[in-house]
Structures are given as structure tokens and as C-alpha cells.
């Protein structure tokens, strides 16, 4: 039984080909019952991710045992997020951590948790991960809080973006307003 707060062994995000998008393995120094040093080298980690992906690439499930680890996972568009933990760990605990992370990331990326946006906003996702799990300890399970702590307070919100869409929007509003006015006349 794990009596410490060190719950999560790793968080991994892979794409549809099984390539790593983001991976963070935790080997906390102060863990009172250190697990045998596994998954410390890049080679081991790659092999682990590959095998795990092979087992879980089909959509549907959200939990499995692989190679002596308990893995909960979540498919999201073209990504799969995994949280890896000790097999004796409470499944729902890991699942709640995973859910809060992916919910927060979803909020931050405006519901587009996909490879492109993750890579474009890697800073946000990394900060989000840091707010969810700190060296294997689950820090926060409330996704709104996580998201709010990551998103920077914007000093200047009046920055106007001008592109085709905004122009079209402006045109639309002008058109509507005109129609209303004309209708009133």
C-alpha cells in the first residue's frame, strides 16, 4: 500500500502514431518506498510508450495494466493522454488527476486538445501539468483553478486583431445595424 503522497509515476501524451508529444516521468528523491529504478533512460521510456500505445490505440477503454504499471488514459482528438501509476494505486484517484489535467488543458486550448495546438501552446500545457502534478504529488484536482492559475492575467485586453474573420464580423454587424435602421424608417 502506498502511504505517501507520491501517486503518479508519469504523465505522457502521444500522438496517433505513438510518438511522444509530451512526457514527464517522476522519480521523487524523497519517496519512502522507492520503486526499483525503472523508466529512467530515454530508451526504456520510448519502449514503454510504444508498447503502451500498441495496447491502447483503439478507442474505447480508459484503463489498463501494462508492464507492471497501472495506466489510465484518455483519447482526445488526435492525442492520447496517459497517467501512469503503481498497480496498487486507487484507479479513481489517477483518473481524477487525468480528468482535471485534460479538462484544464481543454479550457486553456479552447476545447482543441490536439497535437498542433498543444505544440503551439506548449508553455501553457507545461504550466498546466506543473499545476496538476508536482513531482508525483497531485497538487490540484479542480480544473478551473488549474486553468485560471495558468492563464496569464492580460494587462492589455484591448489589443485588436485584424484579419479576415474580424473584418467579416465587423461587416456583419454593420450590415445588421443598417438593416435595423432601415427597417425602422
Amino acid at each position, binding site marked *: 500500500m502506498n*502511504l505517501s503522497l507520491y501517486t503518479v509515476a508519469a504523465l505522457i501524451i502521444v500522438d496517433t502514431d505513438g510518438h511522444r508529444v509530451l512526457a514527464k516521468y517522476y522519480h521523487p528523491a524523497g519517496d519512502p518506498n522507492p520503486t526499483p529504478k525503472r523508466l529512467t533512460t530515454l530508451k526504456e521510456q520510448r519502449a514503454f510508450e510504444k508498447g503502451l500505445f500498441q495496447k491502447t490505440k483503439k478507442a474505447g477503454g*480508459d484503463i489498463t495494466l501494462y508492464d507492471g504499471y497501472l495506466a489510465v488514459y484518455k483519447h482526445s482528438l488526435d492525442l492520447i493522454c496517459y497517467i501512469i501509476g503503481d498497480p496498487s494505486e486507487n484507479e479513481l484517484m489517477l483518473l*481524477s488527476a487525468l480528468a482535471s489535467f485534460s479538462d484544464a488543458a481543454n479550457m486553456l486550448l479552447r476545447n482543441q486538445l490536439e497535437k498542433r495546438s498543444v505544440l503551439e501552446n506548449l508553455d501553457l500545457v507545461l504550466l498546466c501539468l506543473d499545476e496538476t502534478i508536482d513531482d508525483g504529488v497531485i*497538487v*490540484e484536482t479542480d480544473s478551473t483553478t488549474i486553468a485560471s492559475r495558468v492563464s496569464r*492575467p492580460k494587462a492589455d485586453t484591448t489589443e485588436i486583431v485584424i484579419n479576415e474573420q474580424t473584418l467579416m464580423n465587423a461587416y456583419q454587424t454593420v450590415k445588421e445595424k443598417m438593416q435595423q435602421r432601415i427597417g425602422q424608417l
Partner: protein
Amino acid sequence: MVYLAIKELATTAEDVIMVTSSIMKDMQPNSEVIYRPNAIRALCRIIDPSMAQGVERFFKAAIVDKNTSISSAALVSAYHLFPAAKDVVKRWVNEAQEAVQGKSSSSFFNSSGGSSYLGWGSSSSNTTSGYQPIPSTSYITQYHALGLLYLIRQQDRMAVTKMIQQLGGGKTGAGTVLKNPLALCMLIRYAAKIMEEDPNMQRQILELIEGWLRHKSDMVNLEAARVICEIKGVTAAQLTKPIAVLQLFLSSPKSSLRFAATRTLAALALTHPASVATCNVDLENLISDQNRSVATYAITTLLKTGNEASVDRLMKQISGFMSEISDEFKVIIVDAIRSLCLKFPAKHASMLSFLSGVLRDEGGYDFKRAIVEAIFDMIKFIGDCKEQALSHLCEFIEDCEFTKLSVRILHLLGLEGPKSPQPTKYIRYIYNRVVLENATVRAAAVSSLAKFGLNAGEAKLSKSVNVLLNRCLDDVDDEVRDRAAMYLKLYEEQQLAMTYVKEESVYSLSALESKLVSYLSDPDAGEKPFDASSIPKVSREQAAKEVARPSTLETIGVPSSSKAATPPPPSAAETQSQYAQQLAEIPEFTSYGQVLYSSTKATQLTESETEYQVSCVKHLFEEHIVFQFNVSNTIADTVLENVAVIMEPQTDSGLSDDFTMPIASLGANSPGIGYVSFTRDESTAYQTASFQCILKFVSKEVDPSTGEPEEEGYEDEYSLEDLELSAADYILPTYVTFSSEWDRLRGGVTVTETFALPAMESLKAACDSIIEILNMQALGGSEEPQSTSIHTLQLSGLVAGGGGKALVRCRMTYSKAQGVTLELSVRTEKQEAANLVIAAIV
């Protein structure tokens, strides 16, 4: 983002003062709220323990901060810091206590988030961005604070118990202040730990945990149910409630819940199949579950709980989806089937056909091995299916890609094949291997063939095998040719054939290994041939027992539990070679030569509860005898120096004192080893003696603040129990075929004496004590008397130091009035050995 970088670099950085000061600035209470938690968490990575004192004030303030994020961050950082700076963190216990009570978070508690105890629940998300971060509604701070509190108090069971009672609320669990499900899960685990350590608390805590079974959160329910299921010696009545909870989970729409529940049930089914049987209906629905892992667990559970009638139906369903699941789960299923067919031998036919079916499927080595082992077990334990199983195996090796498996199967065929009514049909398969396979398999096939030839009664068969073997003489591989030649030779000499092919005993492998290693490392020994007769032999059954897989009957079907299984205690021979290695490292003993024999079990010279614990192991050399004392000191805060055992031989023993090797320093709870050496005046005689032992030492107290022992100590003595050097220390149990060996030793020394043992209460007690006194191997099951009045016990042993074999036949009669009367006949190669044995009984 900067903080992240700092954290990642933290392990490599050396000069941290600059960074620290800038982070400290961010931590100031007046700086922007959003950065403070990050600053705190980054800080704990870079400071070293000595600086922890300096930031103490900040941490204390942060832990009780109104903002939960800051508080959490401070607690988590404290948790990370704890191993490095115990003393400092221990002082924060009051602050952590306050955080657990959750007073601070209640002020942030707004009614809209009231229902979201679960982090992933319905958190209100209307103001996602802005200057003020949204306060957490998950009470996660409690989780961290509880973890830290436990870490600080874990050595103190009373404090933890009190904490559990305080936080656990009343009997129903409703009055608890803990609102975070994760925190409750941790609390349940702590409670379970306490329950395991302290049986007195069991009832009380069990009530608490049962209360949590009705908690709102699934996570808590699951944890509580699982903990109850894992209690050692849990009764069926206690199990009903958690099983009811798990049963609910089984029909849950969430696959992770189903997974968790089936996994727990599968583990429980190993120990309490009857209790789990109530869930069978739900489990059967899960067999067709989307998630294959859930389905597999469901099936294995059913296989364990099911009765004979449902087996056939299950087998049909399993074979339906066998192709869809991964190898790992296939292995689990095969293991479950193996234990099942041992449980219901009547169903072997359907299972065997299933196994042979999957044997033909695609699969990796582990999977195939599991199947082959399952079939092996069936052959071993279920006589009826032997023939069919063998023919399945024969077919399998026709196109088996794994050399190891082929060799094992060929070996088994060699053993079992000749006993079957039609051995000829296997020979074709085996000879095919000789023609088609690689060298390793060919060699195995040749041995197997030869066994057919030698063991089969028919002359015609052995003749045809002879022809086949002759053909193998032209093989390209040396090993194959050698084996064929050797077996052909055996055809001509029936006596040799008896020893090589039908011999029932094998050398104890680990003993043989250690002897061979010492033989090779000793340059002088190279001149004489290796003496194999000094190695104890064990019977085949024993050897099989030693390597027996722990999974014959009580197969473990759950992969997670295999980690928990403890490794078997080292066998006697392993400890022997370990001792030999220890002795070889001590320079004084190198001139003594090889250890002839070490007593296997350490003799306790003290009660197990005393301040100093001493046990003794005896090592016998050619001309010396060495006593090894394992001393451990259980008193904390003292160091024993110059620890020596003074041994006084009581009788005129024929031993003279060489030297005593004391232990220089012995701290608390770290055992040390001291030696006492004696010279045996005559190396051929077997000295027996009794020794008075005294432990002498200088006791010094340890200064608790510095950890250094004080200058002055006082001398002290501690008397130990007497130590006996007896016949058993010279004799090594070994296996022989008693009747033939007994006849062979007719020419040796035979001594017969009669004893009356009025104190013995039964023949069984007499047998046990004789075996213990002589330290010999009982043969042919003769250690278990069949009749209550008359019995013959057969023993054999090797006498150390060139004493050769010793055989003992004890004829015993028992009557109520006179106790046991014993006629002891000893046959040995030398007179001294016989004397030794007789003297031991007197």
C-alpha cells in the same frame, strides 16, 4: 515559465544564492498572488537543508494562507523537503494541522461549487481568466496537509490513531471535517496500516471504514472496500458489505470503475471464492465487456469461483475472444485454467482440448510456456489425460520455434513416454527432431530416444532404438555424437545403465556449484581429481520440490499480486555457499583450507526478546573448527565495543583454543559477526563437547545530539546458553537408495545397539528426535510411521572429513508401559563414524 526552468535545472545548479534571493522576493506576501505558489514550489527544489531554517517563517505563513493554492504549494514543498530537513519541517506540524481542519478554505467556499467534491465534477466555469485566480473548490489542501502530518507522525502509532479518530468523524463517517476524497483515501490507508499493526484497534477502525463504504464519492467507497478485502484473516461476514459495494460498481457505466471492481474481486477470489460467488451473475455479463482487461479479470474470477457445471460454458466463451486479447492476459487465463483443471480433474478433457487449441494459435514465448507448463501439470497430476496430453505435445514440437520448450518437452517425453502402453508412436516424433532441428534440440532428442530404448521392456523396441542411435553417431555436432555414443555404451553394460538412466537421485545443485567453484579457485586441488562423493544428494522428488513453481494448485491469476509474493527462503545449500564465501574473505581462515561442512541452522543462544541476541553457526575445517557468532544489539543509543564470546569447553574435548576474533564496534540494530577458532587435536576423531559461553563487551552510551559514542564505557558480561558440539554437526543428510546401499556396506563397519527410550510418547516423536539428533536424511518416507506399535526408520548421511557414507536402520517398538525400544544398526565405511553415530544417541 521561468519557475519551470528553474525546477528542471535545480539538480544541476551549484550557485543558487542569486536565484534564491530573487525567488524570495516573489514570495513576499505583498507580491502578486498568482506567482507565489510557483515561487514556493520552485524554492524547495533549489535550497539545501541548511537554508530551510531561513525560510521557515515564509513557509509557516504560507501554509495557513487563506489562498488554497499557496497553502497547497507550501505543504507540497514541505513534503518534498521533509527527507532532507526533518527537524525544520517537524516544527510546522501545527500549521499543517490547521490546514487539515480546512478553516481557511471555508471562507472561499461559495455555494455554486458545493456539489463538486470530485475534482472532475461540475465546477462552475464562468470566470476563467482575470487577475484574481479562482479559488479551488476541491479542498485539495486537506490532502496535502494530511499527507504531511502523517509523514511527520508516522513513527508514532498513537498519534496516527488519534489523528484518524479525530478526522474520521463518528461511526457513520458523516461528522468528518475532511471533504476531499483523496484525503479520505489516504486516511483509509493509514487506518488500514494501523489495523494491521495493532489487532486491538481492528474492530473500532473497521467500523469507521465500513462507514466510508457509504460515502458520496466512488473513490472513497472503492478504497474502503479494497482495504477491507485486503485485511488478513477477514471473515466472510465482514466481506458482505464491501462486496455489495463492488457489485454495484460492476454494473457501472464507467469502465474504470468496472475495472477496479473486477480487479479487486479477482484478487479476493484467490482467498475467499465463496464470498465472491455472489457476484457471479454480474461478472458473467462482463465477459463480453468492451474493455478486454475487464473481461479477462471477470473470467479469471469466474473460473476461480465457478462450480463444475459452469466450466464448459465458460471455456466456450473464452475461446471466443482468445484471439482478441494481448499475450499478458492470455497467460493469466491459461494460469487460471491450469489451477482449475487441478481443482476439477473430471473436466480435463474439455480443458485439454482448449489448451491444445490455443497452443496452435499465434503467441509469444511466455504464452506458449504457460500453456506447456499447464499441460505438464496435467500430465503430472491427472493420470487419465497423460496419453492425450503427450500426443498434443508431440504435435506441438513438430513446429515449435522455441528451442527451450522443445527441449523441455523432449525431456518429459523421455520420462513419461516409455511407461505408456505404446511407446513406439512417440519415437517417430522424437526421431523427426533428430533429423530436422538445431543441435540443442537434437541432443535432447537423443537422450530422450535412449531412455525409450533402455527403459522399455521389449527387446524389439530397444533394438530399433539402437539402430537410430547408431545413425546419430554421424551427427555434425559434438554434443549429439557424444550423447549417442554414451547411450550406446550403456546398452552393453546394464549396471551403468542402472545408474545413469534409472538413478533416482541427483546432486544438490547449489552445493555442487559451490564445491566446484572452490575447487577451481584452489590451485593445489587441481592435482587431484574432483571428489564428487562429498556432495549431498537429494532425491528427485526433493529436487522437484525445491524448484517447484509456487503455482501448482493455488495459481496466482492476478499480475499485481505476483509482485507482493515474497521470495522463498534460501535453501540450506544456498546458505552454505554463502557462509563459505564469508569465511573465505577472512584472512585468518585461508590457511585452514576448505570448509568441510557448516551447520545449516543457526543455533540461538539467547531468548529472542533479550537486549543482546546471539546465534551461532559452526564451521568444520580439516583441522579446525570455527564458531561464528552473529551478535546483534537491540538497545538504542548504546554502542558495544570489543565484543567477544568467551568459550569454555566443559569436558576434556580434544579441542584446543586458537584465537578469538572480537567485533570492534557494534551499533544498535546492526548485527556483527565474531569468530572463535579451535584446533582439533586429531583430525580423524569426531570431538563432541559442550561449551559454556559468555559474551564480553565494553558498553558505551551514545550522545543523542552528536551521534558519537562517549569516551568512557564500562565492561560488562552477559552469559549465554551452553553450546553443544554434537554428532549432528559432522553429518550431512544425503539421499541414497537404501536397500542396495545397505547391502553394499555389508563389508564395512556394522554396529548394533539397543536402547530403551521410556520418555518418548510415540513412534513419530522418536523418529523426529532421532532425525534431529543425527541430522540425517530419512529415506522412502520412513519418517512417517504407519503403525503405532512397530516401525523401521531408514536414515542416511555423509560424515564430514572423509568419514564416508553412514546408514542407519532404526527398528522401533512402542508400548505404553515401556515407551519406545530402539534397535539401532549403523553401517559405515569407518569405525570412527560408526562410533560417532552411536555416541550421539547415548
